[in-house]
């Protein structure tokens, strides 16, 4: 088990370096889509971290954690992408084709 343990030690360092790089991009990212891409990247990297930790600890429960993280990461990415798109249409000036808001409609 010596070879596999060494490989796992190296792997943890490299995955964490990848997460750190993605986190730097999350901080730097000039635009919101950059940050969403960086978050997506961090989710995928943490899924692989869970896989590595499952091998290291010999506990299969971490595979479940990986599934749930992949699911939540996908939902978060889709929601943030929709948010970016909606926000851009709200910030740009309205065109004539859009109907004005009805009286008393709640803004939101």
């Amino acid at each position, binding site marked *: 088990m010596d070879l596999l343990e060494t490989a796992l030690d190296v792997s943890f360092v490299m995955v964490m370096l990848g997460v750190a*790089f993605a986190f730097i991009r999350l901080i730097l990212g000039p635009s919101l889509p950059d940050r969403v891409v960086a978050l997506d990247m961090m989710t995928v990297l943490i899924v692989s971290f869970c*896989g590595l930790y499952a091998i290291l600890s010999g506990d299969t429960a971490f595979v479940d954690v990986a*599934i749930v993280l992949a699911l939540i990461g996908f939902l978060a990415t889709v929601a943030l*992408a929709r948010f970016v798109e909606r926000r851009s249409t709200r910030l740009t000036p309205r065109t004539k084709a859009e109907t004005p808001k009805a009286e008393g409609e709640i803004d939101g």
Partner: protein
Amino acid sequence: MGEIILSALVLLGVFFCFVAGLGVLRLPDVLIRMHASTKAGTLGAGLILVAVAIYFGDTATITRAVATILFLLITAPVAAHMIGRAAFRTKVAMWKTKIEDGAEENLHR
């Protein structure tokens, strides 16, 4: 022998994860960064999950690992498509590129 295969899978997977992280940090614009995160990231996580499936070797774990790989393979393109479209529509600055004729009108940029 099995240990060598497992170590190779783990190291290869983690190499792709590392390259994906480096790509997200270093590449010049959103769409190119997405290219690194989506493809290399999914491949790296998939290889590590294959290593998990081989290491445990019982049916329940193999099923869960394969389900995670399939889920990643199905959802990564969908998520990347949505972020890419949102980035294009919000007029994020592109790196030296020529946008295809008519793409701006067709995609309501």
